[in-house]
């Protein structure tokens, strides 16, 4: 079955991202497809390359990156929700005259249209909200 994930919880504040990650690995291990992960609302913080948890804790951004590298899962981040919360790519940083950015590949800033497309393309869109 084709799955898509919508992640709307922030890492280290809410269990949603970790649950989503475990769910992603579980479905892939059972031979299902994961068409994409979309980060919206507070979930955009998952993409921050500046997150620095203690070394003995999971770095959830790195875990998402590994999911992408191992399984080619697209990691799309809502641009409006991200910019509002200070999650900014290099090109957006340049556009706004900022000296720093914290969103890099494989995460990609994109519009909500991408979420709608993901929902229509997969058979199950699972939301991880809190």
């Amino acid at each position, binding site marked *: 079955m084709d799955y898509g994930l919508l992640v709307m919880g922030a890492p280290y504040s809410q269990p949603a991202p970790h649950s989503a990650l475990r769910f992603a690995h579980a479905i892939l291990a059972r031979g299902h497809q994961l068409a994409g992960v979309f980060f*919206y*609302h507070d979930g955009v913080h998952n993409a921050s390359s500046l997150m620095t948890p203690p070394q003995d804790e999971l770095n959830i951004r790195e875990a998402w990156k590994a999911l992408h590298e191992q399984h080619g899962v697209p990691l799309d981040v809502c641009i409006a*929700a991200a910019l509002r919360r200070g999650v900014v790519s290099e090109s957006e940083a340049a556009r706004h005259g900022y000296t720093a950015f914290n969103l890099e590949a494989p995460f990609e800033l994109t*519009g909500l249209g991408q*979420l*709608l497309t993901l*929902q*229509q393309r997969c*058979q199950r*869109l699972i939301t991880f909200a809190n």
Partner: protein
Amino acid sequence: MDKSEDLMVIIRHAPHNSNWLREGLDAALVAAAFGQSVRLLFMGQGALALCKEQQAGAPGQKATLPTIDMLEMYEIDQLNVPDQTLEELNIPLASLVNGVTPLSESQVKALFSQPRLIFNF
């Protein structure tokens, strides 16, 4: 899914204490702009989004009522609230914006019993 055009966006959070309402409405507006037929269902605290004459709130966000008021321009004219929500929150229908259709318990159940695309905010 055969009715891929048909999207229901469920709003469960009140205005002003989070960004759930704003970002839920954004998703509904984008879907409508992309040509999907969108229904909004305001459940529980979410029904407070429909109270008319509300102002911008304390958290420095823009008011959401202007967005609610322009939903019709996006051809989102299905604004639903369960009867049960109105009863529980003691909100008279007259204190909500125009065009809200209250739904009985069986009508709400019927909405969920058909295959359709749903977002929960």
